[in-house]
């Protein structure tokens, strides 16, 4: 099985598994008063500290553990946005975890504004500058796009926002950046940054929100007051330790180079193939590659290659009566036909170059086969 849908989730890392197994005895509630609980609490603090260091911050109070990145995004947005007439700005490229928060705010009567994407899939900075001329309370722009790998210049965007509106809060969804490209939240200049465990080999069910200034964030769920009162609920000790273990052993730069090599192979393989178009710009994250196959449905191709044990992601999924176009590719200005034929290949360091070579052969031959069947 060649798994090339790593942007959706990844296989559990062996170190994460052994960390979970090792920590079976650490079932004590870290909030309790007995000695064993205190031990667990110390381990938790150490683990959080490792994650903090990994993203370039020092204090545990800057990191709120959640049960998913979706929860972290919701906490960032609904925990920050106060009643206001000022603009709440989102990019058109956001993942549904943010995009649907934006839609919810809009439905609640907020002044929600979307920044369009350029043809590379990045936020259009000229239009953003125009938008930022009006009073702005909150901005959420993702770091790396999950469909195309397009990287937004978060440091630059942060400066644009802060110089125009120093009190505006800036959130970035960093799910596809965390553990894949170098991330330093201080240098990025963000107020809030969401990350996820299961995209980098840690278990599902763990996300984090980096919070620069905790006093500006209100909880969205209430209870026992864990995580500095921001996110109540008994800590998921085992998974937090597993995530810490994974990041502790990650070599982001080395992995980046390795995956770039895989990505380049696919780009080169398809460069001279008729009917195949690479949608991701060359400046994108090497971990995600959007490709369109002219004249076929992306989803059909996904099903076909699965029969040969190659798993890739759909760019746009079919739904009742009509094909639902991929919103991100549409925002990039990609034609309806190529949008329908899009698939997403996403890599991990677990993939070998041989696997990639095999996968390319299978994907292309199945594309030709499908075109023939549809003639």
């Amino acid at each position: 099985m060649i798994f090339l849908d790593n942007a959706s989730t990844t296989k559990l890392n062996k170190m994460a598994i052994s960390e979970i197994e090792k920590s079976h005895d650490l079932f004590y509630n870290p909030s309790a008063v007995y000695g064993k609980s205190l031990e667990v609490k110390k381990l938790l603090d150490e683990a959080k500290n490792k994650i903090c260091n990994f993203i370039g911050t020092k204090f545990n109070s800057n990191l709120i553990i959640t049960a998913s990145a979706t929860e972290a995004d919701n906490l960032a947005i609904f925990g920050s946005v106060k009643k206001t007439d000022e603009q709440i700005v989102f990019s058109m490229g956001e993942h549904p975890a943010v995009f649907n928060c934006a839609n919810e705010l809009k439905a609640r009567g907020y002044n929600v504004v979307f920044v369009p994407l350029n043809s590379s899939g990045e936020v259009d900075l000229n239009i953003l500058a125009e938008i930022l001329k009006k009073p702005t309370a909150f901005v959420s722009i993702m770091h790396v796009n999950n469909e195309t790998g397009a990287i937004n210049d978060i440091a630059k965007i942060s400066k644009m926002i802060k110089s125009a509106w120093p009190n505006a809060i800036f959130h970035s969804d960093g799910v596809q950046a965390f553990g894949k490209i170098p991330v330093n939240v201080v240098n990025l200049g963000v107020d809030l940054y969401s990350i996820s465990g299961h995209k980098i080999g840690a278990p599902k069910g763990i996300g984090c929100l980096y919070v620069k200034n905790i006093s500006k964030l209100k909880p969205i769920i209430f209870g026992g007051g864990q995580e500095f009162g921001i996110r109540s609920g008994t800590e998921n000790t085992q998974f937090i330790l597993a995530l810490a273990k994974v990041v502790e052993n990650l070599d982001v730069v080395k992995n980046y180079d390795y995956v770039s090599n895989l990505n380049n192979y696919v780009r080169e393989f398809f460069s001279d193939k008729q009917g195949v178009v690479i949608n991701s710009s060359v400046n994108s994250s090497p971990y995600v590659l959007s490709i369109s196959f002219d004249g076929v449905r992306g989803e059909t191709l996904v099903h076909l290659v699965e029969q040969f044990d190659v798993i890739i992601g759909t760019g746009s999924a079919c739904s009742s009566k009509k094909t639902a176009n991929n919103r991100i590719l549409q925002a990039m200005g990609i034609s309806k036909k190529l949008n329908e034929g899009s698939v997403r290949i996403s890599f991990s360091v677990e993939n070998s170059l041989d696997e990639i070579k095999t996968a390319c052969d299978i994907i292309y031959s199945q594309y030709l086969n499908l075109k023939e069947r549809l003639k």
Partner: protein
Amino acid sequence: MEKVVLLRYGEIHLKGKNRGLFDNQLIKNIEQAIKKVDENCSIKKVGGRYLVYNFNQFNIDSIVESCKKVFGLVSLSIAFEVNSTIEEIISSLNQLLEDEQFFLNNAKSFKVEVKRADKNFPIKSTDFERELGGVVLEKFPNLKVNLTKPEKTIFVDIRENGKTYIFSEKIECFGGMPVGTSGKGLVMLSGGIDSPVAAFMMAKRGMKLNAVHFHSFPYTSQQAKEKVVDLAKLLSPYLGKFNLYVVSFTKIQEEIHKKCKPAYMITIMRRIMMRICENLSNKYGFQAIITGENLAQVASQTVESMTSTESVLKNIPVYRPLIAFDKIEIISLSKKIGTFDTSILPYEDCCTVFLPKNPLIKPKIELVEKEESYLDLESLISEAIKNIEIIEI
């Protein structure tokens, strides 16, 4: 005092000499439904009703839900069975008023209705009604008696078997005829809103159904098939156990796409589906094909289209129970049955890849036959039938 479920049936009491047949089938169907919930429970006939008893009290809601879906039953009640003595009935009523919140359910007015099938019972119905009414009023002095329009009626049913059943609620069931008493049919399940409703309607008239689904992997997803399996499972409390025949339609669609004019795609597809259904019916003894078709809903559901698809059948009728329904009526039924939320999941119809821009609305049979003549129908159909997957629901 034992909590039991009283089941009332409808139409089958009209069935003169054949009544035994209907009765037996209904009991069998009820048993099948309730044993799934609580294998220890039993069923018996008391007067003109059935009684479910001897179950774990925690299962009562599930038993009620299962029985509501058995066709042939018109209503049911959660009742309390006591010995038919004046003292025991009065003391039990007192206890019920104390213990069972639902019994009066905050009603402001009430009446007591006594039925005395056991004519040896020492008090006349109307006298006993008055006496029991007094018992209620003693406990709840603010309640008003209202004999014409009470908010709640307490029923006291004194049967010939020495037992009395006390209840205050009648829950409506779907009525209809027991499944298995009106022949065997094959319903075409697409995964949309209409076909599960069509299946429900025919089963309600007592037809024993099996189902067929056509899928087009890789043009449709695995999830699309799973969705139909889910719908079939949602239907099984109404239909009983049945088989879902899953036919791969990919090759046939590709052949039509290659050899016939695009506008004929849907007409020819549906004609071939019908032929496969007839073939299955001959093999398994189905007597009718059931579809969720509905006049004028889409291009394939015009009079001409339906005539054209049906004309390929030799010895089997097509029943279309939804033919004259409005979509909104179908949706409302689908919600009542419980299939709506699954039907609208977005997995169906990926095979729109083969859909023509302008499908024929009024296909002419001669022209359709001419287009079809470019296909090797016999081998396509026999290959499809050979590769059928049978899923037991």
